[in-house]
């Protein structure tokens, strides 16, 4: 992966910092960097979000399309992830340079969203066996500043939260074909239930400790990182009284490893536990931010920054 060039002394400096739980930018090993998130930034997409995590810049757009469900899953919709590494991020991504990274991220997302306990595809069904929604989640990496997986998963969840699917006004049956009439009123639409959507947490092993949210410099000091996908908690994404909603336990929806190194089983177990705790905090913070933004949109007080900031 594209990384900054560091001398061996700089690497040792970072390693010692991690050992003492005090990283070069002043964070402890379990702290995230501040993030900026804005939803509804692309007018042509059904839902969109832009997330900036220090120098990492991710733009996600969700496009919807009507499709025929798979014959072995007649009652379910479809979701697909595409990652594009823009050459703006680093010149190394030019041409097919970013393909490998893009593939690994989209694979990871696809796996994390596989189980219905993470994202229920039944909500995308329009007409069982005949028509369903297909969501195309296009992820654009505009800048790389480390920790791409986490940033991508946060931005995707925010974009899905922002996605609106138009209601079906009428359906005409013509032989075996269904002709749908969709409502063209943008407010006559339903939102997706994405409370359980997974977040990915990358744990980067530096020395013999794991850190969350590694910067690009820290990533180049580590030979192995663990990515844990953890399902969210719907109670963070509801404005109503949360007492009648079941408190869903966080579960692992996917685990994978990145990088040429290996880890001891004990470290792996600790890292999984650490990842779940980190994911819980992230999920809560994301839920709060999204609800606040939705509230601002409702009372027409939302100030859009777009790409000016």
């Amino acid at each position: 992966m594209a990384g900054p060039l560091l001398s061996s002394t700089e690497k040792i400096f970072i390693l010692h910092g991690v050992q003492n739980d005090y990283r070069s930018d002043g964070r402890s090993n379990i702290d995230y960097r501040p993030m900026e998130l804005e939803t509804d930034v692309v007018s042509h997409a059904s839902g969109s979000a832009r997330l900036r995590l220090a120098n990492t810049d991710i733009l996600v757009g969700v496009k919807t399309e009507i499709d025929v469900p798979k014959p072995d899953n007649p009652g379910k919709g479809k979701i697909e992830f595409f990652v594009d590494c823009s050459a703006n991020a680093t010149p190394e991504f030019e041409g097919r340079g970013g393909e490998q990274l893009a593939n690994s991220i989209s694979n990871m997302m696809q796996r994390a969203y596989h189980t219905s306990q993470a994202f229920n595809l039944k909500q995308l069904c329009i007409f069982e066996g005949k028509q369903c929604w297909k969501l195309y989640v296009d992820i654009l990496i505009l800048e790389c500043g480390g920790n791409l997986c986490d940033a991508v998963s946060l931005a995707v969840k925010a974009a899905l939260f922002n996605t609106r699917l138009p209601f079906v006004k009428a359906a005409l049956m013509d032989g075996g074909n269904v002709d749908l009439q969709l409502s063209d009123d943008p407010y006559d639409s339903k939102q997706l239930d994405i409370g359980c959507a997974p977040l990915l947490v990358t744990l980067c092993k530096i020395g013999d400790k794991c850190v969350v949210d590694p910067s690009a410099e820290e990533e180049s000091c580590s030979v192995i990182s663990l990515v844990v996908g953890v399902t969210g908690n719907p109670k963070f994404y509801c404005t109503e009284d949360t007492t009648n909603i079941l408190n869903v336990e966080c579960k692992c929806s996917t685990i994978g490893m990145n990088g040429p190194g290996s880890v001891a089983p004990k470290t792996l177990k600790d890292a999984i536990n650490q990842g779940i705790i980190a994911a819980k905090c992230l999920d809560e913070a994301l839920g709060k931010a999204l609800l606040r933004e939705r509230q601002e949109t409702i009372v027409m007080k939302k100030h859009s920054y777009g790409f000016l900031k």
Partner: protein
Amino acid sequence: MPLDFRRFNGPEDSVSYTRFTQDFLKSYDELHNELINKSNLRKDGRALDEARSMFARTDMISQAKGSAYVELKKTKVVCSVFDPREIPHQNEFSQLGQIFCEVKFAPFSCSRQRRPAAPDAEDKSLSVALRQALEPAVCRHLFPNYQIDVFVYIIEHDGACLAAAINAAGLALADAAVPMYDIITASSIAIIGDKMFVDPTEEEEHVAMISPDSENVNHGIITMSMLSELKQVSDFIQIGSMDTDCVIKAMDILEKECAKLIPNIQQVLVMNVVQNIEQQKKLEEEAKEREAALNAKLEEWKTLLNAG
């Protein structure tokens, strides 16, 4: 998906007949209950925590530098490793050698669908997983700026194909005399509810990947590869949804399963070395015989010449 026009494709809105067969119309619970019979045995007579016996051999493909064949009942995998070669299309010098992995399914390998000829997303993700698993095992600093090609062909797929592929690749690398830190083994487990199926078949994997209707039931598949002597996990892949306790419990089981495979693999490797030495001896003997014959001929001619 683009249509393959060399085949007869049928009408556009046709549906596979399997959609209406009895097997397909079974509900999740029926599928689930079928996996285990009353005496707690699986369909093929194994206990839940019993892995399939593995058959492995090296020297499968004569053209390759090293090759191996691994069979877990109906899962059959061939792997070949070729000599290191310079990394193509690379400008920068890389200090560490690279491993290039390609996993391919035979078109007829799966029972549920015909595999497309071009690699699809699953093939690619398996290739990535295989590379991830092998990289920590190989002494890559001995091959700067070189790449080693590892090709895996899955002839028949009946579950746990990634684990079989990793086992085969480890054997093939050893057969090719690529220096490695440790023997690499892999094992896989399918989790459905509170039951853990060690070394699952395709059917068990399929049920484990379906999300049950009832909320909060653990399901999924974990594949782990280990360097047992060094106590290192080189790859860990989990899909599905399960809580941490379940993951950790599965991890302990997998660790043991990976260690269990070691004697088997060691035996194959020792056999491989013994065979190679024997072959070497045989070749040397043959060479000696030929030399003796030639010498005798030479003497004969010499006497003939002298006589003439």
